[in-house]
């Protein structure tokens, strides 16, 4: 026997949460582009998508957000701080790969300096992931040691029922349990069979890749130039990545007042590391692509003991020139042999 949530009750769940003062977010589509948006009812949810176009990350680390407001006076500067309020949120229908991305960035945003922008939202959000019964050609969670039903980063994991009429519910954290308790009356107990998970083939040997990447001999290999020759240096792979977290700080406004904002930035951009002297440590696109791969599969794991790729495949799926992590790591796997 297991706890079940039938799809038919989902609307009531959402209503209940909303009555309790929670905001409910989930995958939905607007302007033809899917992402996580606040919803008022189950009908607005798009739970059949393999993945949303934009990531869960955006709900925690928006692409632009104000940090400080300032007003410059003659003898004083008035500032006001923007830190997100602790409004509680349910995020329903997250894919396990996106949820896993949360844990990756937790490490970074809590490294000595505790980033309130991230953690206020983290602490007040409950992530309901749904294990995947579908995948597409770009999915590769299994190559990263994750699976269609990984629990990393999730507070509740839902396993779709074979009948397609609901989910088997599994609380993973205290936050998850609390969120479930407020809808306990809408949950059922039952022995309904879960649907089979999607079979995501393993595309490369991660450990072999990591060994190759860790070898300093390979840092200046011709491989990097060849694999990234067609890269056009846009930021779509980084901006659509569930873990990429680089940002810029920009002041904006008129002469007397304005807002200091935290904006997404990308290691793909040539100006990202450019010194004012004109010296650019990563002057070429291949150096930038190498940094992205090294950072994800070598540096970050050395430092935080976790890969900063969860295998969602968005980088390849959305790349204007059909590049991505998959191709590069597959190629590195072959180099190994």
């Amino acid at each position: 026997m297991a706890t079940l949530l039938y799809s038919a009750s989902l609307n009531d769940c959402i209503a209940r949460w909303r009555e309790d003062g929670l905001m409910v977010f989930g995958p939905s589509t607007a302007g033809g582009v899917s992402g996580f948006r606040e919803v008022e009812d189950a009908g607005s949810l798009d739970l059949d998508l393999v993945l949303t176009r934009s990531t869960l990350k955006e709900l925690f680390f928006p692409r632009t957000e104000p940090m400080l407001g300032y007003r410059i006076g003659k003898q004083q500067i008035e500032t006001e701080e923007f830190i997100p309020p602790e409004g509680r949120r349910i995020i329903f229908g997250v894919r396990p790969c996106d949820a896993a991305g949360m844990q990756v960035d937790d490490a970074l945003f809590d490294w000595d300096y505790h980033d309130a922008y991230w953690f206020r939202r983290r602490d007040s959000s409950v992530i309901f992931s749904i294990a995947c019964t579908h995948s597409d050609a770009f999915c590769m969670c299994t190559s990263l040691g994750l699976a269609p039903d990984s629990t990393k980063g999730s507070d509740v994991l839902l396993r779709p029922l074979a009948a397609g009429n609901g989910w088997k519910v599994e609380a993973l954290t205290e936050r998850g349990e609390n969120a479930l308790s407020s809808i306990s009356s809408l949950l059922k107990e039952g022995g309904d069979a879960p649907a089979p998970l999607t079979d995501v083939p393993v595309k490369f040997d991660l450990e072999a890749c990591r060994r190759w990447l860790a070898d300093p001999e390979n840092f200046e290999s011709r491989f990097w130039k060849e694999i990234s020759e067609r890269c056009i240096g846009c930021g779509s792979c980084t901006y659509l990545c569930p873990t990429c977290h680089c940002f810029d700080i920009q002041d904006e406004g008129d002469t007397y007042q304005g807002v200091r904002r935290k904006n997404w930035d990308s290691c793909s951009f040539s100006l990202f590391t450019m010194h004012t002297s004109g010296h650019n440590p990563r002057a070429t696109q291949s150096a930038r692509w190498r940094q992205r791969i090294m950072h994800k599969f070598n540096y970050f794991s050395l430092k935080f003991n976790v890969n900063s790729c969860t295998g969602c495949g968005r980088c390849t799926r959305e790349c204007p020139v059909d590049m991505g992590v998959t191709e590069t790591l597959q190629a590195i796997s072959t180099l190994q042999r």
Partner: protein
Amino acid sequence: MAKIGVFVCHCGENIAAKVDCTKLKAAMESHPGVSIATEYKYFCSDPGQESIKKAIVEQGLTGVIVAACSPRMHEATFRKACAAAGLNPYLCEIANIREQCSWVHSDGDEATEKAIEITRSLVEKVKRNNELQPILVPVTKRALVIGGGIAGIQAALDIANAGGEVVLVEREASLGGHMAQLSETFPTLDCSQCIMTPRMVEAAQHPNIRLLTYAEIEKVEGFIGNFHVRVKMKARYVDMQACTGCGDCIQKCPQKKISGEFDCGLANRPAIYTPFAQAVPNKPVIDSRHCTYFKNGKCKVCVKVCQTNAINFDMQDEYLDLEIGAIVVATGFQIQDTSLYGEYGYGRYPDVVTGLQFERLASASGPTGGRIARPSDGKEPETVVFIQCAGSRDPSKGVSYCSKICCMYTAKHAMLYAHKNHHGTSRVFYMDIRAAGKGYDEFTRRAIEEDGAGYIRGRVSKLWQENGKLMVRGVDTLLGKPVEVPADMVVLATAMVPQPDAKEFAKTLGIGCDEYGFFNEAHMKLRPVETATAGIFLAGACQSPKDIPDSVAQASAAASKVLALFSREKLEREPIIAMNNEATCSGCWGCVLACPYNAIEKKDITDRAGNLIRRVASVNPGLCQGCGTCVTFCRSNSIDLAGFTEKQIFAAVMGL
């Protein structure tokens, strides 16, 4: 940040009556970066200016805003005051709270509010102003005069007589231009060559004038005070040093059947020739297109007869590079190709001639020795018909403008004809008689009243030959009926047009020209002698059809502009010019195309070994006039305009 002083002027009551100056002052006092704000009745007065100077010194101001009348009024005054106090004048801006505020708004509160915003915006701008230094350009005190007609000669002499150095370039083998071809000149009927040739000689012998005939301008680069000019010295095949001008070669040249340009085809010349008897320099050239030796490789009669071995068939075109400070363009005009007018029969009937040909016939030094005779049979014509506006004022086939001189020279022609053939009849078909000018109307009246020229108002529609006569059919619009005149000779008052290569030459010079090819003046009313390119001036008919007095007057005017320029060692120019960030320039040359002054050049960026890395735009501060059109074109924001930089304007808008 900055230390800005804001000086609010009452302008008596002009501003203070509407704008609450005290409130404006207070608003500025509390503005970040403003060190001092004061108000005063008249800041343009001596004590007013003194108080600004004092504040600059005492407060160590880094910028000044005077909120007062229009900058067009007193910007210069206040900038000078700032400079006197040691503040770079370009760190001073004027907030216009009179013409554009107190005088145009009725409501005092609204006017005050607006005055505050205007002033604030400029405070923000001035915070970003940079110290600018006037651009000093050295002046090469050598003028280039292009064209050796009357305009060019006049300009050259005026400059030379005032002590200026001149290079006078003429593309024909002799000075003189069209004026040398003329018989007598209106309205005085004095002999053209008699007044022209002494001028030619004076120019040729003037110690300050270097005369280059049979030479053309190949390339003009640089800018005012600093032009680099390349002149092509066409091969004359006659050594100018050795030649004594004896004329033996001209006499002996076997090739004599070349239609003479100077006589408009009414007489022939040999292959080695001087254009006309009084040519300056009076030394021949060989016309290699017609010379037998050049055609067949045999002859060399001239070599044989020349006592001084002056003939050199191996001579090549040579190039001369000159450093020039100012250029006077006096390239003159041509007459329109009259064969356009089939109905007038030019080219078909030998006795239909152009006005210029008639000049040669009437000239004492001309092919007929001044006898007016028909080209066909040499007989004196009994009846001569003059057709005016043969090309002018005819947008459909000719040119739409008036050639200006034809009314006068036709009257002169009728007069000369009457003086030389007392029994002859002259008929003039005209549209209007345009005789504005000193003594001009009197002159045409004399032609009609004293010399019996019969004026018929109307156009000629057809001309044919019948029984040895040229039958001219036209309409007398005053009588309203057709007329037919049997004539022995017909003279066409052909339109004056620019030189055929004028448009091309305008490009060489970097000046503008109109749709016909007449060179453009900088301003039709106020700068009729200057071109839009600083340092290049116009004289004579290359700018528009002109008669001799107008050409001479403009030539002297151009000379005075050149002399004014030469009166200074260095030119001082407003430093409001464009500047390019070479690091970010992609070298697309959009700015080069957009610049009205050809002020943007292509510059090579090379590595230490001199290898070309890339090319970028580079602004020539001597040519840039500071319009900023390039700045707006530049997509990468690489070009900027000093005094009106992107940063300054951004701040001014954001400060509103």
